[in-house]
């Protein structure tokens, strides 16, 4: 590494050549405040429009102040990050941003978790010297995301996520000057766009401009209704992140405390989406093997590769952008929906409660799940299989609101039967996990042999596109993995062009998979948090006795008692779905 010497705040330091002032300062422990800048190192995602101008510093010999986030260091550079000129400029710029920002902090859903608010706190802003007209826009509520763009500070992070990372292209900066803001085309509502509700915009928004639709009150109402049996399911990735909302280290597993908290909240049954994840593997794995074997036998009518379908953001993505390829993904429903379908049939029968009197709540790291559970195809006579989907953040709010001291809770178990799961299910929460779980089961089903080593390191990691060939006892199975929709697009384009040689591909809409979902506690740009969550999931898997979905005794029982066999008729009805062409046709009126 080539290094250069620079002077930061009167300290001579050696830094990497080509480093920005921001990076160099960090190396030597000087914290320069930033607002628009976002750098997810481990994912190689960076947003640096240099637009907010908060990170300005003084560089000797330069006419104006330099934005630290994009200014490269050079040999002998003399930098001052905190003299009076810099501080005055920074505070003035912050006051300007605040002058065009609603001051309803107390009732803002980002209260206490807002980067702008904490900056105002750090800077000790007690008065805004430049009050004036505020730019105001129409608020927009969709099934999953609320846009309150009066609070937009034009950091452009959401735009970058939506376009560069996810390639969904729903958001763009629109208008000019004072009225410029990030919005969908024609400033229409999100539900009139191709939004996948992946929620990555929400995950990076520094203010309250983009937030989730909050269902906590609906859940509280259901819990308070004595005529309802309220059942909760929690997704794998939630347990690896919820602790952060209560001050725990990232990567702390809170499975037991979470179950305890849910029970104290008053849920009648505390179940686990992991159960449904195991069920998904049974269905999806069977489907994979079926397609694979037919393909191997020369049946040209089967489409390969098979793509996973448990991520609702990803489903929305291909329905909008690749509708012509909608026969390629597995028809298996997502674990959330499988859970709902089984709960409101099999389990309802078991406990003798009518589905109308049953409320199924899911706790998800995801915002697209809010939209998914509202899809018509997942309703019976208008009654949805899953009534409410709340995010990890909403669950934290619920716990806080109901005066539960989370950190002091004992570790408890999930209820039976739908609370039991294997290690294969818990890794659903990270990129690579679904396909690893599928491989564990498919290998044994296909070869009839016992899989000795269940850890497939070659499928793990954070690289956006990964591939591996797994030896199915002499049969090489080629696996592809993509997370982030932009990377999914690359694989889809390959398939479309007939260049894809994979048998199976796992796709997760969010970078990192569900651990980086749009409903998770905010990472505020620290991607090491995602890594810690990932590690936690793999450690929970490693600690389990049962690590293959088909070994889950309650799954075996479910098939025996109710479903018959994987991909059987009842499965087809309850656990599989079909996809729609949601591409927009331009209406032409003659």
């Amino acid at each position, binding site marked *: 590494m080539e290094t250069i010497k620079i002077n930061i705040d009167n300290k001579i330091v050696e830094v990497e050549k080509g480093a920005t002032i921001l990076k160099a300062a960090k190396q030597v422990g000087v914290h320069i405040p930033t607002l628009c800048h976002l750098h997810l190192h481990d994912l190689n995602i960076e947003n640096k*429009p*240099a*637009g*907010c*101008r908060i990170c*300005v510093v003084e560089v000797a010999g330069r006419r*104006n*102040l330099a*934005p630290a986030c*994009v*200014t*490269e260091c050079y040999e002998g550079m003399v930098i001052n990050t905190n003299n009076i*000129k810099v501080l*005055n*400029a920074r505070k*003035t*710029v912050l006051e*300007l*941003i605040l*002058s*065009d920002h609603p001051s309803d902090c107390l009732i803002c859903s980002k209260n206490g978790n807002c980067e702008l608010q904490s900056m105002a706190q750090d800077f000790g802003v007690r008065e805004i*010297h*430049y009050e*004036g*007209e505020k730019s105001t826009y129409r608020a927009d509520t969709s099934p999953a995301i609320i846009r309150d763009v009066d609070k937009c*500070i*034009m950091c452009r992070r959401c735009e970058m996520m939506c376009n560069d990372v996810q390639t969904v292209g729903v958001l763009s*900066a629109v*208008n*000019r*000057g*004072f*009225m*410029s803001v990030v919005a969908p085309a024609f400033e229409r509502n999100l539900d009139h766009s191709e939004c996948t509700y992946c929620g990555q915009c929400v995950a990076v928004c520094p203010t309250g401009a983009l937030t989730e639709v909050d269902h906590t009150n609906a859940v509280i109402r259901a819990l308070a209704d004595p005529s309802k049996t309220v059942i909760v399911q929690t997704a794998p990735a939630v347990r690896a992140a919820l602790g952060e909302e209560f001050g725990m280290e990232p990567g702390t597993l809170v499975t037991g405390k979470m179950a305890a908290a849910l029970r104290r909240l008053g849920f009648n049954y505390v179940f686990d989406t992991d159960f449904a994840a195991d069920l998904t593997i049974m269905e999806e794995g069977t489907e994979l093997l079926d397609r694979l074997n037919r393909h191997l036998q020369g049946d040209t009518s089967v489409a390969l590769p098979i793509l996973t379908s448990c991520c609702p953001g990803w489903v929305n993505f291909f329905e909008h952008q690749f509708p012509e390829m909608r026969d390629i993904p597995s028809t298996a429903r997502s674990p959330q929906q499988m859970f709902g379908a089984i709960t409101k049939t099999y389990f309802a029968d078991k406990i003798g409660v009518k589905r109308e009197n049953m409320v199924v709540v899911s706790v998800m790291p995801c915002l697209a799940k809010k939209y998914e559970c509202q899809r018509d195809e997942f309703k019976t006579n208008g009654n949805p299989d899953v009534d409410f989907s709340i995010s990890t953040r909403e669950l934290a709010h619920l716990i806080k609101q109901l005066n539960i001291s989370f950190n002091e809770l004992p570790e408890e178990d999930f209820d039976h039967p739908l609370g039991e799961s294997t290690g294969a299910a818990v890794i659903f929460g990270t990129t690579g996990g679904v396909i690893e779980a599928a491989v564990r089961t498919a290998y044994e089903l296909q070869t009839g042999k016992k899989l000795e080593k269940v850890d497939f390191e070659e499928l793990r990691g954070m690289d956006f596109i990964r591939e591996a060939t797994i030896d199915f006892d002499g049969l090489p199975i080629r696996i592809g993995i993509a997370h982030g929709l932009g990377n999914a697009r690359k694989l889809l384009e390959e398939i479309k062009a007939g260049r894809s040689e994979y048998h199976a591909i796992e796709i997760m809409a969010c970078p990192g998979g569900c651990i980086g979902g749009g409903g998770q506690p905010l990472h505020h740009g620290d991607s090491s948090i995602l890594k810690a969550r990932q590690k936690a999931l793999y450690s929970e898997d490693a600690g389990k006795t049962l690590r293959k979905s088909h070994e889950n005794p309650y799954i075996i029982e479910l098939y025996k008692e109710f479903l018959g066999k994987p991909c059987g008729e009842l499965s087809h009805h309850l656990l599989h779905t079909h996809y729609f062409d949601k591409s927009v046709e331009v209406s032409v009126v003659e």
Partner: protein
Amino acid sequence: MAKFKMHLLVCSGTGCHASESELLLQNLKTIINDKGLDTEVQVIGTGCFGFCEKGPIVKVMPDNTFYTQVTPNDAREIIEEHVIKGRKVNRLLYVNPETQEHISDSKHMGFYKKQLRIALRNCGFIDPENIDEYIARDGYEALAKCLTEMTPEQVIEIMKKSGLRGRGGGGFPAGLKWEITSKSVSDEKYVVCNADEGDPGAFMDRSILEGDPHSVIEAMAICGYCIGATNGLVYIRAEYPLAIDRLKIAIDQAREYGLLGKGLLGTGFDFDIELRYGAGAFVCGEETALIHSMEGKRGEPTMKPPFPSVSGYYEKPTNVNNVETFANVPVIINKGAEWFASIGTEKSKGTKVFALAGKINNVGLIEVPMGTTLREVIFEIGGGIKDGKKFKAVQTGGPSGGCLTEKHLDTPIDYDNLVASGSMMGSGGMIVMDEDDCMVSMAKFYLEFTVEESCGKCSPCRIGNKRLHEILDKLTKGNGTLEDIDRLKNLSYVIKDTALCGLGQTSPNPVLSTIDNFYDEYIEHVTDKKCRAGQCKALMQYVIIAENCVGCTACARNCPVNSITGERKGVHVINQAVCIKCGACLEKCKFNAVVIK
């Protein structure tokens, strides 16, 4: 070939065009034909003569007769009198405003006396739609010389020695820019001509493109040769239809002659030019914004470095110069770096084109050597202030510049002196203001422009300029406080220090320079609630002077809001609470009884 005895040059620039010069040109041609003079007299539509105040212009060669404000109906008289009988049409000659003399030869007009036309050398002299006329004026000779007799390094050396600086605003040395781009290693490079002239009141680039498009094409090809580019792009405002047409014609002609395309002038050098249209965004004059716009994106600037010379259009090294800069290049190659460097001041070489506008007698386009004083420009070339009013200030550099006052009149104009005086060269707009112009309103006008044109990317410009404008608005409405003036200053300095691009960084200049030079006026607006120029409506009152009022009731009858009361033949009074300050009473009063206070 017919040998013409006489040439009638008719200005076909946008200004004159708007005053029916096209019809005039047609009429002249028709009458010449009717009279069978078409083998003797040639009628040519040319680019702008610069003297737009008195357009449309017709210049008769070879006797240099300069006719002003010619209407299509004057065509017959010019031909029958001047062309046939040799008698000049006196009434159409320019009248010296001081001596009231009719001046026939443009050389004797104050407007042209002090001018030195390099960039504008062919404007108003050749037919811009005829490449032959350009070639006859040494056109493409510089390109030919470069391609056949010089290495790119030698050409760059000449450019560097000439001292030519970018004419678009910043004043970066053109030769150095070329050198940096030539040294960037890449499979592809681009030459971009910035013709997105956006300063309100500046129109020299348009005039050059309309009057001498080939000079820009030739220079771009030379630049391409120097930096190793085969593609040229002209980013031109869509609001300049005439310039676009002329440029297209010129490009086609150059291609036909093999002066654009493959293997220029029999050498192995390929170069061609495409047009890209602007769409009404001032910020696209900033080169990174311009490049984004050419890529089909929002014209938002990005941080420099990387400079376009290293990473520009589609991340390829790109050399961006503006029209006027390019127009100087062929002459420099032909006449030499030493010749060019001998004109101008120590650090600003050559000439600069200025667009004179505002309260000045000779509105128009002028080109003077660097180092000419403001006094020469305004009072000699510009013919002084309109209606004999008093000079107050001149705004240079458009919305990025500042005001210069009486005390700067004898400062030689060059890049560095203008910056030192709190303004800047900008693209060369010069708006002259007289005692009727309120400087607070002027600053507000420019901020209104900046607010309108801010791209919105960085917060200081997006919000800061909005706040500056709001505070200025408050002052002009009489609601300002002294703290507001301090706020204006602090905010201005912060915006200068923190804004992302040149537009933002210079946007407070009109505020700061008016505060510096006209502090008293700001104070008056705050403490006395008075606007001495009488421009701030909220701060003025229409008052009836009792002694002068004869009670004719004209004012009361014409007041749209019935704010004036009084008996017939009695003194009238304006109710200030009702008055909307429309000025109707002042206009209607025949006895000078209504005054503004």
